């Protein structure tokens, strides 16, 4: 018997067993990936569930069913909750509403949609989210439902919505193509146009008038910053705008002013997106904007979300706010500045334009919902004149997305005490639309843009920072 030890192989038997085990685990995992949603997403079945709805429309058709809603904690949702008993009485459908604060609401929506489980039938979202959630098929096209008289009540009247708001929910998912088309991924529910709100008492005392061009706005902010405190307005600074490192910093005042100056975020060349936030004009504007905040904005600006910016206006710390009109509207009640706010469209472009970017809270249907008909019954009610009129006059559902509501005497009476609010709304509404170039990597592009803006605010050279941004974004947005 050979007693010599056997020569060792490169791999011992135990090693081979380990490798085999690992291989087995990996090969077992691979086919299971689809079960986890990998490569899945709701299948495009070619037709719409709306086609199956026939016969006369009946509000009671889904009596006894429950519709699950994923909602942002928002005054719009509060108005819905206050009115939901009306819906249940009318339809027999029960609403189960889960609310999440805005700071993590979209994380929840992303995870819910990505799971493909249809845990929620309908949810709130914004237009920019359509660009991310639409391409994988997470959203139900609502046009077949709207166009089916058996599924939609006769008074729905899509033409009553402001056209730019309706268009914001339409896109063909081709990077760079304009919004519009025959598919409706969401319906506008409430919206915000970005304008300037200001302290009327401060302006009156200092003899100021709202700025009509961007350079005047910069000077106006400086004047408030230097003179307000010595005129009895405490430690007031000039202008509040958002500054945190997130996409939401770019879309309100910044994008509105950027657009009024005739600037674009991207150009489309041979089907590819070319970042244009580093053109000489865009660099000059960005540098001026950062300088305006540095000279006349709040300390700690890089932490400023809509909440901090609007709270400062309400608390009497800011003289102006260039942001969503409703963010300032909510500060005109039960705050230090209550009753002292006024609204103005903000600086015009060189050609006198009032192009304004907007944010739309919308309602959409989960394409993975197993309860689509009842979900549509809810959506059409929540988007009806009946509910929106109630929500805009009895709740805080402002701005109104339907022309019939926005022009109603009851709505106007309600807003009349807010100096210049309605006049401002009427001046900008026709020029208010999505001013960004539609593209699937919107959140990456705008978050990176906000980070670059923070760098410039901190003293970095605007040209090199924006050149670097454009260079790094170009491959990512075309990936």
């Amino acid at each position, binding site marked *: 018997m050979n007693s010599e030890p056997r020569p060792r192989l490169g791999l011992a038997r135990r090693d081979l067993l380990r490798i085999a085990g690992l291989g087995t*685990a*990996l090969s077992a*995992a*691979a086919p*299971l*990936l689809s079960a*986890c949603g*990998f*490569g*899945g*997403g709701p299948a495009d079945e070619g037709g719409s569930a709306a086609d199956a709805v026939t016969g006369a429309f009946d509000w009671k058709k889904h009596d006894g069913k429950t519709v699950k809603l994923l909602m942002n904690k928002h005054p719009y949702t509060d108005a819905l909750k206050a009115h939901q008993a009306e819906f249940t009485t009318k339809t027999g459908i029960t609403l189960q509403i889960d609310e999440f604060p805005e700071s993590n609401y979209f*994380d929840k929506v*992303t*995870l819910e949609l*990505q799971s493909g489980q249809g845990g929620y039938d309908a949810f709130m979202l914004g237009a920019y989210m359509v660009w*991310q*959630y639409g*391409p*994988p*098929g*997470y959203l139900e096209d609502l046009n077949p439902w709207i166009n089916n008289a058996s599924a939609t009540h006769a008074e729905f009247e899509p033409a009553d919505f402001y056209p730019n708001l309706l268009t914001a929910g339409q896109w063909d998912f081709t990077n760079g193509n304009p919004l519009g088309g025959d598919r409706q991924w969401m319906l506008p529910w409430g919206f915000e146009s970005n304008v300037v709100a200001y302290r009327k008492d401060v302006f009156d005392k200092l003899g100021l008038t709202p700025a009509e061009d961007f350079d005047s706005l910069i000077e106006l902010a400086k004047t408030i910053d230097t003179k307000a405190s010595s005129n009895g307005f405490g430690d007031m600074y000039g202008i509040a705008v958002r500054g*945190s*490192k*997130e*996409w939401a910093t770019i879309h309100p005042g910044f994008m509105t002013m950027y657009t009024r100056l005739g600037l674009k975020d991207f150009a489309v060349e041979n089907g590819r997106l070319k970042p244009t936030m580093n053109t000489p004009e865009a660099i000059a504007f960005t540098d001026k904007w950062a300088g305006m905040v540095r000279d006349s904005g*709040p*300390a*700690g*600006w*890089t*932490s400023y979300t809509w909440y*901090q910016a609007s*709270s*400062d206006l309400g*608390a009497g*710390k800011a003289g102006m706010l260039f942001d969503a009109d409703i963010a300032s509207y909510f500060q005109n009640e039960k705050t230090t500045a209550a009753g002292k706010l006024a609204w103005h469209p903000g600086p015009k472009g060189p050609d006198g334009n009032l192009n304004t970017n907007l944010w739309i809270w919308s309602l959409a249907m989960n394409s993975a919902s197993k309860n689509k008909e009842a979900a549509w019954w809810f959506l059409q009610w929540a988007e009806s004149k009946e509910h929106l009129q109630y929500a805009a006059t009895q709740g805080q559902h402002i701005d109104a997305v339907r022309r019939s509501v926005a022009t109603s005497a009851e709505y106007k009476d309600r807003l009349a005490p807010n100096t210049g609010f309605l006049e401002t709304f009427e001046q900008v509404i026709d020029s208010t639309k999505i001013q960004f170039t539609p593209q*699937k*990597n919107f*959140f*990456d592009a705008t*978050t990176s843009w*906000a*980070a*670059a803006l*923070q*760098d410039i*605010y*901190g003293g*970095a050279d605007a040209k090199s920072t924006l050149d670097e941004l454009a260079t*790094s974004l170009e491959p990512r947005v075309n990936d």
Partner: protein
Amino acid sequence: MSVTTPSEVDHDDTPAGREEPGSRPPTVSRRRRRLRPYTLAVPAVLLCVGILYPFFVGVSYTVFNFSAANPNPAFVGLRNFAEITTSAPFWNSVRVTGSFAVTATVVETVLGVGVALLLYRGGILGKVLERALIVPLMVAPILAAIMWKLLLLPEVGWVRPLLAGLGVTDYTGTDSPLWAFIWSVVVDAWIYTPFVAIIALAGLRSLPASPFEAAAVDGAGWWFTFRRLTLPMLWPYVFVAVIFRLMDSLKMFDIIFGLTTGGPGDSTTTLQINAYLESISYARYSRGITYMVVLWAAVYLISMVLVGYLRRLQNRTAGEAT
């Protein structure tokens, strides 16, 4: 009628000495006896599968180009790794992650040992503080970050008036990259210094008294005793806390994200924040998980080195003690 033969009966479980007189020993069939090791292993196997399955699924994502914009992904091999490791944001986040982890761990270790030494002196105040010390550890880090964010906001927080009282008039919160980094470390230290202190205090209380008594008899001063006796004997305990804190700091997400969102610019963007942005905000799932796998590999390798060092340290200390 079945007959159980003596060879099929398992008497091993019940030692004869413990049997009650007249009681019948339990019988276990040969089949059950053979299955016993496997049944005992079932919970461990289930636990491993529960842990490893999501892990391997996650790892497998890294070789595809899965994203919301591309729900039917293709196999791309190691392209995700190549792309992120050749990108500036990745190396920036490596630098931020490393700087934060080392700085926070050093600060917390020094402060934690200092606090433990103060508490070790005893007294009523020490006993009260010892219990109060764990309060920050009971606060969820994201809540602590939001609380500190409010404190640090120049327009509404308490920090600005406090600093103004000390003559600092140009306070701007987390507006500058340096201060954003410093405040992130401060918040982390506020939460986790007590963790180091508690471990160090437990170590101090377990040290033998005789070497210190001998040093006192020989007239050794405080600093000499601390440097030559306390610290070397305490170090194996403190090093356990160092390992925990370093590993945790390398994975830092909640405190920095809550405080600065990774800004200003990208100055406090860690690997975890990039992973979050890619996976959740930008819905580029494969790229996000690639970040996480890279971080996992780094944490795993560093922890292996540190645990090896700890083992040698403990062996050496045990050898010195004997």
